[in-house]
């Protein structure tokens, strides 16, 4: 692992804790105050999960998946979606509303492990960390979906999510925007000189764009209370991390020219 890089375990802890804390804060602060002002916490939790998921995608895709980076993101977010909704239904059935995100996370881990075992043992893909990565990506995907859905709906009860997120079809928007936020960073930085810091700055930037979309969608459900704080924080977060990504790019690129002809043969190092 290179100098100054974050370790996988560090990112897993940040992702799980950050995601869960954000989702719980949003749900309970909203229900305690009876408003929707705190929905943005769930979206922030989802952004942290994007941060984690993008690194997991990065680790597994560097081995060479054969079909490109987007495939693993789509697979996991498709699986994560089912896990989330089952987790919420289980919590509703057994009356343990508070445990819903944790159950969703565990179910996503189960699907992730199954996918990883199938990919490595049955399809015989030669990637040593496949099971662990698939599990991590599925868990991150479930937190992303649950986080953005909670931000849209204002809470994570099953009937609330069903009514406000699934029925209008926002669940698919969360699916693709969250999935894209997770897989775009590594796909966009693909190449021999890819660096974790630059990729993860981009991950936070795409995460905040996803938060912006969730904020717009939440406006349809909870109006100004949910939409305005979410959108404002998303725009600020995006600006900060996009500028950091730009600075990283300037540092890493062979040259960043305002305009110019192609470099001559001699100029290329």
């Amino acid at each position, binding site marked *: 692992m290179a100098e100054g890089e974050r370790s996988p375990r560090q990112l897993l802890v940040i992702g799980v804790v950050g995601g869960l804390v954000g989702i719980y804060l949003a749900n309970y602060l909203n229900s305690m105050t009876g408003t929707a002002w705190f929905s943005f916490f769930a979206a922030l939790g989802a952004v942290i999960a994007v941060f984690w998921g993008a690194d997991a995608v990065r680790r597994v895709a560097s081995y060479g*998946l*054969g*079909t*490109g980076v*987007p*495939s*693993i993101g*789509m*697979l996991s*977010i*498709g*699986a994560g*979606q*089912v*896990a989330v*909704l*089952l987790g919420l*239904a*289980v919590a*509703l*059935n057994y009356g343990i509303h508070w445990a819903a995100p944790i159950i969703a996370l565990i*179910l996503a881990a*189960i*699907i992730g492990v*199954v*996918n990883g075992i*199938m*990919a490595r043992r*049955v*399809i*015989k*893909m030669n990637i040593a960390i496949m099971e662990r990565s698939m599990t991590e990506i599925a868990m991150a995907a479930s937190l992303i979906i649950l986080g953005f859905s909670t931000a849209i709906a204002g809470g994570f009860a*099953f*009937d609330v999510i*069903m*009514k*406000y997120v*699934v*029925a*209008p*079809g926002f*669940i*698919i928007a969360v*699916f693709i925007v969250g999935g894209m936020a997770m897989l775009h960073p590594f796909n966009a930085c693909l190449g021999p000189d890819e660096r974790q810091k630059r990729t993860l700055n981009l991950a936070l930037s795409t995460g905040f764009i996803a938060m912006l979309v969730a904020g717009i969608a939440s406006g349809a459900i909870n109006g100004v209370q949910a939409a305005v704080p979410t959108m404002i924080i998303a725009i600020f977060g995006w600006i900060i991390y996009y500028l950091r990504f730009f600075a990283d790019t300037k540092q890493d690129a062979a040259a960043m020219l305002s305009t110019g002809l192609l470099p001559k043969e001699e100029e290329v190092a």
Partner: protein
Amino acid sequence: MFSLLYWVWIILGGILIGAGVHFIPVGGAPAAMSQATGVGTGTTMLAAASGLTGLIGAGSAFAASGGNFAYTIVMGGVSAALMISILGFIANVMYVYGAGVPLASAKVKYDPISKWRQDLYVSRGTEGHGTPMSSFVSGIIGAFLAGVGGALVYFALAASYAGIPGFSATFGGYPAPYYVSLAAAFAIGIFFLNCVMASYNIGGTIEGFHDPKFRRLPKSIAASLVVSAVGGLFALLIVVMLPGGI
């Protein structure tokens, strides 16, 4: 109540989706440079494109016929096959007139269906171009299977969820009932799950049923079976968890 029959439909649907991906001729990135036989897209995404168009057909059929099993399945398959036949044909028009190449495969000497000579028509340094007869027909079969698979998954989910009390409601001004939205969202998710697994099995490009890589199909069936079983189980357990509805 957990319905074993619907679970079997989802598993079967998943297997058919995975199998369909193996039939659809994909040349990947090289096909766009007329270096490989097949359509110029990725395996996952082309199967998803045609299969999900089939899903639209299945959804309309399910709603129009009030849940008729046979009609939903057939319309799902036919819609998907229609989409890929148009796509393949227009792509071939592009190859013939835009790139100026005859349609040919480099993997076989004589096309299994049309019996036309292939290797003399392959330009130098390439592995074929366009979608000749066998690949085209193989694509139609593949899209039909993927469409039927997607329709099976959608039918099982929609029929299960329609039985939950309160799931036929709609919210606000949005016209789609809960069970349609949830079934469609899950069908898309399970679709991607199986498509990606199958494309990992193929590992790049495939020309159709006459391609040597086609013999890898059994591994994909096994993987799709397990993955769809788990995914389908999770999706159907929601019915069990909500006996009283919402």
